[in-house]
Every structure is written in C-alpha cells, then in structure tokens.
C-alpha cells in the first residue's frame, strides 16, 4: 500500500515542478525528453525502454532506485558487444561464467559495465525481489562484476541474462578475457601489504631511533644495544619482504643488459642494510635502519601511485572482443548457436538488427542495411541485396538477414585487416626509452665513479675510512626522489587528462606525447560526428501539417536518411522554437502522428504512401519528379513530393565535431596537421581547417599507415587521431595513437589513448600539458640531484651521520613529490583542463 501511495503522490509534485521549469526530463535515465515524451504513472519517459524498466521496478516495489541518486537509469543502447541471451545456453559460454554449481544452486559472475552509481548497486543487489529464484546477488563495484547465486531448476542462466538486459544492465561477454584481464588492473593487494609492512617497520624504527636523534645519554650501553637490536629486527621484513620488487626488477633489467632506475635503488638498499648491520655488529654506531625503512616506504608509495593512476581500461583488444562470440547457424528449420570459429563455408547464419556480421558472407535472404562504421567510421549504412557479398565487420541495421558463409572466420577480410596491423602492438613501436631510465644509467655510472674515487682517496690516508665513505656515498646517492618524480608527475598528468576526457594507456604515453611534431587526423568519425546532421530545406517551404505527413511516412522507411529525417521532423510538446532550432516542426497541441497507409518502399529510389488523404513520396529526384540539384561534397539530398507535386529537397550534411577547426588550429602550435580520408572528397567545413597540401583523399588503410611511416622516416614524431578499424594500422604505426570514441563501450581499435569525442577540442591543451609535465619532471630531477650532491658532499667527507641521512632522504622525496604534483595541477589549471564539463 505504501508504495502505491508514494508513487502517486510524489511524482505528481515532480511533474508540476518539471512543467514550470519548461523542461521534461526522463524519470528513468534523466535525459531531456526533447521529442514526444511518454507519459506513464504521472512521469515522463524518453523512450519505451526507460518506461518498461520503470514499470518493472515499480511492480517489484523497487522504486527506491530513483530515490538514491539523481539520474540512475541507463538508456538501453544496443551495440555490437551486447550479446544475444540465447548464447548463454551454450555449454562453452556457461562454463566460462559459472563458478560453482551444485544441487541446482549456481553461482555466476558477470561483467556489467553499465553500473555507475549507488542506485545501480542497490538495484543489482535487490534482484531477488524481481525474481524469487535469485538467492543472492553481490556487486563488486570497482571491477563492475556482479556475482549472482540462483536456483537453476527454476531459472536458467539465459533468463537471468534476459532479466538483466530488461532492466538496462546487459552483461558483457567478450571472449572470456574480462575475467583474467581485469584482475591485473588496479593496485595489486600485495603492494598494499608490502606498503603496510614497510610503514609499520618504518614507524617503529623511527621510534627506537629517537634516543639517537635527541643525543640521549649513551652511558647505558645495554639500552642502546637493545634499541639497535630492535631496529635490526624490524628492518628484516622491510628488506626481505617489502623491497623484493626492486631487486627483481633490477635483476631483470641487468639480465637484459639494461640499467633501469631500480639498479641504483637496489644498490642503495644493499649498501644501507650492509652498512647498518656492520655498524651495529662492530659497535660503530646505530646504523641507518630508519633511513632504510623510510626509503622503502616512500619508494613503495611511488609504486602505489603508479599502479593507482594506471587506467583500468583494456587498451589491447583482440578481435574477439568486438565480434559476437557465437552466432546463430541455421540448419534446415532449426536455429542453433555455434561459436564463430566453428563456422564452415556454406553454413547459413542469421544476423539480426544491430549485430555485427562476423564472417564474410553472401546475402541469402532479407535486405542488408550494413553500417560499416566499425571499419571506416562512416555510419551511413549501405544497402545490400540478395546475392551481394557482405564483408565481416559490418553491422546490420533493420530486419534479420540470412547469410551464406563464404569463408571461415580465420580467412575473413576483417581478420586479415586486423592482423596486418595489430600483430604485436607495443613491440613495433619506435624505441624510445623512458627518460628516467636514461637518467638512471648515467646516474649509476656517476655514483659508482664517485664512490670509487672517494674510496681510493681515503685509501691513501686512512684505510678505516674507506668502507664507511664508500657505503655512505652509495646510501646517500640512492635516487629515491628521482624514482618518485616520474611516477608522480606523469601519473598525476594522466589523472588530470583522464578527468578531462583523454584516457592514456600508461605514463610512457605522456612522455611520447610531449615529443610529437606531426599530427594525422582521420576524417569520418573523428573530425566529423558520427550521427549528427545539419539539415535544411531547399524549395517552397513546407507547412507544419505537411512536415507531419513527411514524418509519418519517413518513419516507415528503413533507409538511414529517412530515419534522420523522421527524427528531426518529430512533433514536440513544447512550443518554443528557440529551444530547438534544429527541429523543423514545432507543434503545440496536436501530438497525434497520422498513420501512413499503402506504404511502398523501392530500394534505391524512395518510399511512397498515403498520409491524411495525400500521397507523399520521399526519395531521389527521379522518384519525386524533381530535378537533380548540384551537390557539394559530403551532402545528401532527400527530395519530397506531396500530392504529386515536387516540393523541394532536404540537404543533409554531416556536421564536424564542435570546436574542430579551433582544435586543428591549436595543434599547429606544436605539430603539422595532416588529414587522411578514405573518401574521395572532403566536406568544405573540414577542408577549411586545413591547407590544401595537408589533405590526402582516397586513402586505403595501408595508405594511412604508409603515410605515418613516411612522416616518421622524415624524422617526425607522429600523433595519429582516428577511430575506425581502418585506422588501426596507422594508430599502431604512429608514435602516439589516439582513438576517438563516442560512447564508453564503443569499439575502438588498439591505441595508446582514448579520447572522449565530446572533448575533441581539448586535444591541444592535453598535448601542451604533457609538454609542461615533461619540463616539470626535468626540473624535479634537478631538485633531487641537488639533494644528492649535497648528500654526497657529506658522504665523501665521511660526515654522513645517521641523523643527516634520516633527514635528507625523506625531505628530498617530499619536496620532489610535492613540487611535481603542485606544478602539474597548476599547469593543468592554466590550460583549462580542470573541469570535466
């Protein structure tokens, strides 16, 4: 009872508020309902999907979902990674997901990337209220995993998946890679434990070193010995447990004949420990155990930050992540799911709406309406008729089609295209050692030279001083601050860039990005938006009722341009034309959409039908008895005839992304821009941003990669910005490859970074920030070297007391970390990269 009262009373108030604000937002997903909003239970919904989810939740008394967060719902979006629910019936898929199954009780773990807020967690953990067969569901938010225990005799895995899809949380199934791959991301537990142990030991050692720091009365040798012994005991877990990572890393580096930053660190650690043990056992002094604990603690802190900033994104993707794992094979009248790899030549497969064609095939039944945006970035689908070849990688839009498999998956066009370019991803990259390792090499050589020189100097005067001086040099020269500056500076840069919409693979990308001096853009899908069109009408203007007729007919068509037209001519509730300049028809009262009758669509020509007593035709010039008008590059014309009269045509042009021209202009400050496109001509809007000699049209995927290689041979460091699989080769070849993506779950080829398409105009600032970050690192290296030089001057003079070491080491680390973090934050603020919007 309580629920029903609430759901009536509360939404009523909500509705009033919304009306006065002259804005309709979807109660479920929070999107603005620009067009005809659906009214249900006194709430507005933007689409039937959102309404259906609300209905389901309301029925189960789960409306608290909406009370927890502002706009919790997820609009259901189909993409290629959404998997058909029946595939979960397949034993091989089931085996991959099921963790435990006994006596009809089964536990599975599904990856649900859509969860994003408290409401999501709450709903997903209350699934048992919707479906009683679910015993328990638990969310692991950080990895976006959902563990569900359910009674399988009442409720199959497939039904479970269908339920999740219905409420907008479709689980992702990608080659099974997510379960192993995801675990590697984030900070490993072991690092936390090592950090905890090091911190624990460091604190205690400091405590027991206080008597020494304060110059306590040393008349009681018993007491001092006791403290030294305790310090020694506490240093054991630090050296034998917490610091193991540095030794293994240094050893691996040395075995590969590489001196990395961990080599001088390992040297310093060994020197510290050996000297301290020697001091204590020979009674020379209290040892440097406090410095040892502090050093390892700070170094691990750096390691932690590095792991923490590492993006938990999968940048290396295999083709299997994109393609449906399993397809429906038709055998006689039976449809059975089979895995893509098992498809044989001559098999018949069914590809439904929004699904990717996994193999090259011959269209056997139905009309193909293939969107190749995954391959080329071009979203306008192309029509394929029975008997035509459809290549793998295209996505069917519209009714299901039946294909005859031409060749097995392994030999398909897509597989070849993929393997040509992404054979080994990072190995092919032009070698550019990390700056820090270069510094480390010289540093190590310098340290060894200094310690040898100091040792031989003292050898001539006082043999007793050789060992203390040599170890002191090694101790104080340990490049702790040096090792910290890079992870903190670049890690912080990565974090800030991620907040601004550019997600980097790792901190090495920051450094490579700072060096670029040429930038190559792909056009379609990168500089132009995927689905945004500019629309205007040429001819005698249409009256609102005529536009309504056009809308009524256009919505029946399968053609993509009709879909654009139908969407833009939609009736709206609010009579404020200013709020929607892009929509052509604004009608206040009449939300009724008339029905088109006697609809007939002729593929390749147009669609005709009767709407409210008048014959309407939409299509080519010939189809509507009009005359073909001159078309600019990138334009499409849709002619309209009403009542047998040609009325004119809609000009549709793909829009460039916001701020595209400014962005290209901004990039000129660091790099020569190039535009490579597979199209024969370039839209004038895009063309204007480039000089004519910078544009290359008609590029095939190998051409793009070839051009990038050509630039590199001329000594340029190339940044490639692309989106489709046809850019994959160029993205791999380039020094830094950025793929532009519109949705988080979009198909992006392997790259170094992913740029949120809405923030394309931030690219110049992002590059600028990486350059600043590099300068900041260099400055911080200078600071830490100053500390080292100061320390070494104490050491060679034989005056490095444990107290000086204990102050110098943490001080240098804290200064360097503080400096780089602050400097990077200020730099990002100046470049306007602070806020997300």
């Amino acid at each position, binding site marked *: *009872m*309580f*629920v*029903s009262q609430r*759901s*009536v009373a509360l939404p009523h108030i909500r509705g009033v508020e919304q009306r006065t604000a002259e804005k309709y937002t979807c109660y479920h997903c929070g999107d603005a309902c620009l067009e005809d909003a659906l009214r249900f*239970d006194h709430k507005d919904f933007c689409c039937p999907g959102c309404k259906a989810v609300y*209905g389901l939740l*309301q*029925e*189960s*008394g*789960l409306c*608290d979902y909406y009370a*927890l967060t502002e706009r919790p719902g997820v609009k259901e979006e189909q993409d290629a990674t959404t998997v058909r629910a029946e595939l979960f019936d397949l034993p091989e898929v089931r085996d991959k997901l099921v963790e435990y199954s006994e006596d009809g009780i089964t536990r599975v773990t599904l990856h649900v990337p859509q969860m994003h807020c*408290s409401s999501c*967690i*709450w709903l997903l*953990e*209350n699934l048992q*209220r919707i479906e009683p067969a679910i015993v328990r569901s*638990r*969310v*692991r*938010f*950080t*990895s976006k995993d959902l563990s569900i225990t359910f009674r399988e005799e009442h409720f199959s895995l497939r039904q479970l998946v269908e339920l999740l899809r219905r409420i907008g949380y479709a689980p992702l199934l990608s080659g099974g890679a997510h379960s192993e791959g995801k675990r590697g991301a984030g900070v490993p*537990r072991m690092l*936390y*434990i090592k950090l*905890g*142990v090091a911190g*624990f030991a460091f604190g*205690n050692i400091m405590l*027991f070193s206080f008597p020494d720091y304060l110059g306590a009365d040393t008349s*009681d040798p*018993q*007491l001092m010995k*006791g403290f030294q012994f*305790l310090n020694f005991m506490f240093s054991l877990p630090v050296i034998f447990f917490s610091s193991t990572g540095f030794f293994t890393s240094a050893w691996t580096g040395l075995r590969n004949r590489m001196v990395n930053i961990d080599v001088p660190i390992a040297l310093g650690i060994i020197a510290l420990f050996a000297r301290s043990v020697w001091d204590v056992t020979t009674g020379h002094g209290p040892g440097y155990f406090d410095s040892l604990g502090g050093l390892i603690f700070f170094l691990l802190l750096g390691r932690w930050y590095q792991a923490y900033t590492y993006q938990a994104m999968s940048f290396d993707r295999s083709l299997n992540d994109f393609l449906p794992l399993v397809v429906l094979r038709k055998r006689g009248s039976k449809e059975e799911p089979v895995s893509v790899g098992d498809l044989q030549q001559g098999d018949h497969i069914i590809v439904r709406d929004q699904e990717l064609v996994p193999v090259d095939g011959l269209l056997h039944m139905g009309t193909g309406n293939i969107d190749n945006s995954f391959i080329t970035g071009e979203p306008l689908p192309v029509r394929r008729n029975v008997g035509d070849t459809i290549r793998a990688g295209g996505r069917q839009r519209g009714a299901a089609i039946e294909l005859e498999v031409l060749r097995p998956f392994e030999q398909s066009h897509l597989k070849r295209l993929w393997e040509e370019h992404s054979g080994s991803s990072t190995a092919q990259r032009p070698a550019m050692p990390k700056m820090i390792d270069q510094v480390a090499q010289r540093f190590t050589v310098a340290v060894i030279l200094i310690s040898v020189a100091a040792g031989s100097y003292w050898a001539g005067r006082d043999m007793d001083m050789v060992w203390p001086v040599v170890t002191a040099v090694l101790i104080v020269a340990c490049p702790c601050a040096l090792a910290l500056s890079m992870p903190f500076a670049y890690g912080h840069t990565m974090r800030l860039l991620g907040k601004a919409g550019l997600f980097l693979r790792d901190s090495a990308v920051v450094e490579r990005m700072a060096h670029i001096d040429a930038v190559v853009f792909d056009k379609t899908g990168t500089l132009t938006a995927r689905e945004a069109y500019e629309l205007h009408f040429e001819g005698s203007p249409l009256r609102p009722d005529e536009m309504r007729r056009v809308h009524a007919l256009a919505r029946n068509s399968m053609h993509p341009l009709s879909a654009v037209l139908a969407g833009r001519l939609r009736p709206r509730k609010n009579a404020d034309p200013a709020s929607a300049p892009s929509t052509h028809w604004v009608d206040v009262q009449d939300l009724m959409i008339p029905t088109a009758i006697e609809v007939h669509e002729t593929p390749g020509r147009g669609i005709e039908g009767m709407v409210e007593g008048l014959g309407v035709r939409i299509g080519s010039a010939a189809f509507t008895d009009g005359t073909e008008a001159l078309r600019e590059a990138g334009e499409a014309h849709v002619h309209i005839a009403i009542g047998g009269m040609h009325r004119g045509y809609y000009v549709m042009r793909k829009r460039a992304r916001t701020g595209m021209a400014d962005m290209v202009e901004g990039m000129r400050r660091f790099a020569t821009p190039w535009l490579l496109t597979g199209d024969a001509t370039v839209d004038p809007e895009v063309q204007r941003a480039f000089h004519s000699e910078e544009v290359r049209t008609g590029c095939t995927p190998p051409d793009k990669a070839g051009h990038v290689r050509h630039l590199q041979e001329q000594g340029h460091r190339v940044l490639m910005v692309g989106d489709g699989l046809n850019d994959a080769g160029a993205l791999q070849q380039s020094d830094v490859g950025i793929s532009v993506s519109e949705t988080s779950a979009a198909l992006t080829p392997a790259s170094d970074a992913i740029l949120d398409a809405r923030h394309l105009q931030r690219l110049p600032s992002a590059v600028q920030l990486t350059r600043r970050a590099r300068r900041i690192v260099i400055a911080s290296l200078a600071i830490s070297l100053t500390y080292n030089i100061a320390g070494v001057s104490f050491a060679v003079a034989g005056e490095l007391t444990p107290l000086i070491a204990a102050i110098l080491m943490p001080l240098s680390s804290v200064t360097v970390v503080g400096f780089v973090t602050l400097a990077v934050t200020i730099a990002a603020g100046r470049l306007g990269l602070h806020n997300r919007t």
Partner: protein
Amino acid sequence: MGIIFLLIGASTVVAVIFLTAFVWAMRSGQYDDDRSPAVRILGDQRPDQSKTTNIPKTS
C-alpha cells in the same frame, strides 16, 4: 631500566597484532571494493516491501 624492554615488547606485540589484522583484511579482499558496502548498508535499512505490496502493472 629493564622495564622499558618489557614495555616495548608488550607494545610491539600489540602492534604486530594490528599489522596481522591489516594483512588479513587485505588478503581477504575487504579493501577490494570500497563503494558497494557503503551503499548496501543504506539499502538494507529500508523495510522490505517486496512481496506483500505488489501493485498493479498499470495505473
């Protein structure tokens, strides 16, 4: 002065107990997800209104 070692010993034992507790908590995965437990507690507080108060599908 020997008493100080007894005190240090005692305090170290306590500290080691806490360290062990930390390592155990870490290993058992209690820090793996810092978001959902917080939300879980909010959800469970509300009365379970699921089965008895089902209302009609449409209104």
